[in-house]
């Protein structure tokens, strides 16, 4: 397994220690889309192993913040740190490697690859990371039992219910044992009971393997699964949110 090697070897010049010693940090991040500002100086810190909910009204900038933290978007100014490295200083190829090797993702609508079976979808991050197919499918298999998905390995996304598809997406997000799982409204398309089931699985699995979770949600009941919440309002993070756990 060579996951992480390409990332570790990059950005050495920019690496010092993370300003606050946290695993993930945004410092005074500004990001606009055209003339429309989405983030106006957002600062947030997440300690290793924490589960943090990012809340806020629609259009407040919470998803943009998640995308900046995850290296999907590059801020116009400010700093983004992961594990002592400046993510915002990395090039697209390096950020892509970082996302593939160290981060997992779960989105609102699962976004499974429709041409692939559930089993192949779960194995995808491993395959993209260079794991051989047989080993990747073997690793993926574990998650089907763990998330109550046994028997669904051969189905494609169109043959899965919303809850099943989201559990497959969760398995895909965690299969490569990422350092950080970024989840953007992971229960937004599910009914209340199914969403609860997915959150129980997400939190249980993340705690079990020590994965840090950054969870964007507008639902208080979902945020209540996190260790703490930060509130994004008008592109800044609410300074009254509870202090992060000291790393």
């Amino acid at each position, binding site marked *: 397994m060579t996951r992480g090697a390409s990332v570790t070897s990059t950005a050495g010049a920019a690496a010092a220690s993370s300003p606050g010693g946290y695993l993930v940090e945004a410092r005074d991040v500004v990001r606009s889309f055209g003339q429309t500002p989405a983030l106006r100086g957002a600062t947030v810190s997440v300690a290793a192993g924490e589960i943090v909910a990012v809340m806020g*009204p629609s259009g407040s900038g919470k998803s943009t913040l998640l995308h900046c933290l995850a290296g999907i978007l590059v801020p116009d100014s400010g700093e983004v740190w992961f594990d002592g490295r400046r993510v915002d200083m990395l090039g697209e190829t390096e950020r892509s490697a970082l996302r593939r090797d160290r981060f997992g993702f779960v989105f609102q609508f699962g976004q499974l690859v429709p041409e692939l079976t559930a089993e192949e979808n779960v194995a995808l991050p491993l395959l993209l990371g260079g794991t051989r197919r047989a080993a990747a499918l073997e690793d993926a298999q574990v998650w089907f039992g763990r998330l109550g998905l046994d028997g669904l390995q051969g189905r494609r996304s169109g043959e899965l219910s919303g809850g099943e598809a989201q559990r497959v997406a969760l398995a895909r997000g965690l299969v490569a044992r990422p350092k950080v799982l970024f989840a953007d409204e992971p229960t937004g398309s599910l009914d209340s009971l199914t969403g609860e089931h997915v959150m*129980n699985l997400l*939190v249980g699995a993340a705690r079990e393997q020590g994965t840090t979770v950054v969870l964007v949600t507008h639902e*208080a*009941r979902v*945020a*209540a*699964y*996190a*260790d703490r*919440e930060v*509130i994004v309002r008008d592109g800044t993070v*609410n300074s*009254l*949110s*509870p202090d992060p756990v000291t790393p």
Partner: protein
Amino acid sequence: MSVPLTLLGLLEREPSHGYELKRDYDAYFGRDKPLPFGQVYATLGRLARDGKVVAGEVEPGAGPDRKRYVITDAGVTEFEAWLAHPVEPEPHLQTVLFAKVVLALMLGRSAGRYLDTQRAAHLQRMRELTELKRTGALVDGLLADHGLFHLEADLRWIDTTAARLDALADVVRRSAPVSPSGRSR
């Protein structure tokens, strides 16, 4: 929580001794506030006086509690009527949350800061209840759900109010006092 009606409900299930009623009441309805034995027997006495229950003969054996209580037809009728009647929805806007926001605005204090603090407190309680759900028995989970839904309703009110603070401040400062329905007086 109506203690007499709850005890009637437990008695409709099966005739019971006072200590059995207390045990079941505490297990289901009195987790935060167990029912004192004195209140159990005082309530049963009033229910017996009103013809809702009857006490059986004193049973042989040791111990102070040797009477079994049985619900009467009148008791069943009263319990069924109570069960069928919806609980009055509580006027949440009359609560202390509303009072604090309006008073803060009247006094030129930061109502937004208060709402943020209140939101954090609500979310902390929701985290505790969620953990109870994750780790507790189904009955605990159902009780936690009840609390979670009410806290969530409060949070929606907090968020909506936070989004309207500027407009509310204008109204309150211009023409205090304000009625709970939002109409200036």
